[in-house]
């Protein structure tokens, strides 16, 4: 358990500045997710916290102590890599035990106990004698997580751990990571992903990054309900928030209107706007209707259950007034 504080942290590779002054506090025992589009610096930020990269300027504190130049192994962290980074020539057991065998004062029995405990948590005990190449992708990822657990870290770092798994396995592993966070009570976890669904489902708090700067930090619902920029509004939530400009926005005293698909209703008459159906998607539990109404991208309306609209139908729609987000020309919300 540790709290982590970043004070005006910057990182440059040669002339390219990737992290441009980040102030952030990760609380003890918190599950913090870094999310953002590719190239926003989220993985770099994680590597700075791990100590695998040096910070160019600023301060990094673990529990109030500056750790700028502390070696990764002395920070009390464990890291799970996107590519698993297992030692290919070692058995699963050795992969998990390797770090421990190098620590002084660890008896063999104690190491075995810790490895087996972690293996039981992840249900990989039957694979302990196998080599990584004899395992499937999902099993390898469990081994990588198991290796991290045996280190008994204060801080858990995940670098896009699910992006190499198929969709079904991704959901299952996501739930396991969430369970893991509950079981290992009070271990601080930092998780990097570009998938906002992972961020929303796992995080206590989400940190949205953009171009090496923190765009917004908050709980998933704070980001969903009160995004403090068009960028965050568009990034969080699925389907993506609809943005409507021009005269329609001016009628609401804004440059840009943001309204989520689930906050638009199709009405029989006297709708605020009207549009032509160009495409529908039926997912069973809910369905999406895509409307052409002169906006940059088609407007998505999310309906419960299935629907019977056809392309070419003209429909009237109304936004829920209390769910409309109004933004100014700079993309900031109008209070």
């Amino acid at each position, binding site marked *: 358990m540790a709290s982590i504080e970043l004070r005006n942290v910057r990182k440059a590779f040669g002339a390219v500045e990737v992290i441009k002054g980040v102030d952030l506090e990760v609380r003890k025992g918190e599950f913090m997710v870094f999310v953002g589009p590719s190239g926003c610096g989220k993985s770099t930020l994680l590597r700075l916290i791990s100590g695998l990269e040096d910070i160019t300027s600023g301060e990094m504190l673990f529990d109030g102590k500056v750790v700028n130049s502390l070696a990764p192994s*002395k920070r009390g962290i464990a890291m799970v890599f996107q590519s698993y980074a297992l*030692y290919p020539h070692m058995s699963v057991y050795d992969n998990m035990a*390797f770090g421990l065998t190098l620590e002084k004062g660890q008896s063999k029995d104690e190491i075995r106990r810790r490895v087996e405990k972690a293996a039981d948590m992840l249900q990989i005990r039957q694979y302990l004698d196998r080599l990584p190449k004899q395992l499937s992708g999902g099993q390898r990822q469990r081994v990588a997580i198991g290796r991290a657990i045996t*280190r008994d870290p204060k801080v858990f770092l995940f670098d896009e751990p699910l992006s190499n798994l198929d969709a079904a396995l991704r959901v299952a592993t996501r739930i396991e990571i969430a369970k893991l966070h509950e079981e290992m009570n009070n271990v601080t976890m930092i998780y990097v992903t570009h998938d906002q669904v992972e961020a929303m489902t796992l995080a206590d708090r989400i940190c949205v990054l953009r171009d090496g700067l923190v765009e917004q930090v908050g709980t998933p619902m704070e980001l969903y309900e009160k995004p403090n920029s068009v960028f965050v509004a568009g990034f969080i939530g699925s389907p993506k928030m609809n943005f409507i400009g021009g005269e329609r926005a001016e009628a609401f005293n804004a440059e840009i209107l943001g309204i989520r698909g689930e906050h638009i209703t199709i009405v029989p008459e006297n709708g605020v706007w009207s549009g032509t159906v160009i495409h529908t998607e039926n997912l069973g539990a809910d369905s999406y209707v895509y409307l052409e109404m002169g906006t940059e991208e088609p407007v998505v309306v999310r309906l419960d259950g299935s629907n019977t609209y056809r392309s070419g139908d003209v429909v009237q729609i109304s936004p829920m007034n209390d769910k409309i987000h109004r933004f100014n020309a700079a993309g900031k919300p109008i209070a």
Partner: protein
Amino acid sequence: MTTEALKMPAVAQRQGRSELMQQRVRAARWFLLPMMIALAVVAGWPLARSIYFSFTDVKLNNLYGAEWVGFANYLQIRTLESGRTIYRGVLADPDWWNAVWNTVRFAFWSVLWETILGMIVALVLNAEFRGRGIVRAAILIPWAIPTIVSARMWSWMLNDQFGILNDLGMRLGLLAAPVAWTASPDTAMTAVLVVDIWKTTPFMALLILAGLQMIPKDIYEAANIDGVHPIKQFFRITLPLVRPALMVAIIFRVLDALRIFDLIYVLTPNSAATKTMSVLAQENLFQFDNFAEGSTQSTLLFLLIALFTIIYIWLGKVNFDGGAR
């Protein structure tokens, strides 16, 4: 790659070949054919001729009038009337066993040092630094120079009267008197070894470097987080993972070293301290008019190399497909 192609027919036969598979097997045979013909002409035929000659009393000026003599060139045991037993043939020739010993000694020390130095060079070249591309190219220069040229160059540098090494040694007070490095029996082998190691370390380094680059970088990051000391990282991670490439590199070099000829021929001609099997065979074949004996020595050299290779591949479980993962 070739082993894959060769394995395929066996698998296909077991399961009943599909038309596509038959087609692929046929194509594979056609692709292999030119190589098999070339090998048969440039390697198979000369080898068969050499082996045949080793069982005859052939002379260089009468290659087609040879008569079969069986194993006489290898070993001939005759008991005289006086009861004394006389051993004749290559296997009873002390010069031959001197050459065998020289060759083995040369191969062992040169490959050992080339492996150690090549590994160090490869590790340095695998690190990222400014100008790495130029250094990588530059390090290949000794390997690119023809052996005859570099051997002549070194023989001048090692010359007892005009050589720069003696001059340097004298000026720095390391030598009391000039040393005839290549001519003196005490130093001749060392001189040959130094030149060979200088010349071939880049080749070794390059092969090992290729193996090192197969190792994913993220493993080292995981090791850093595990707190594995760099020296332990080398012995517990790098070495096991580069081993397949290293084993192939070593066998290439040992085969090369066992048939060393040009360097010794130029650097230390006629020195019993460095004469190897190849040099001895060449002398007998073309200089001393002992074509049959030379053929016998060539055949023995071939058998020795073949035997070594088989044992090495068997014991070392060398995988020529390469790849650590």
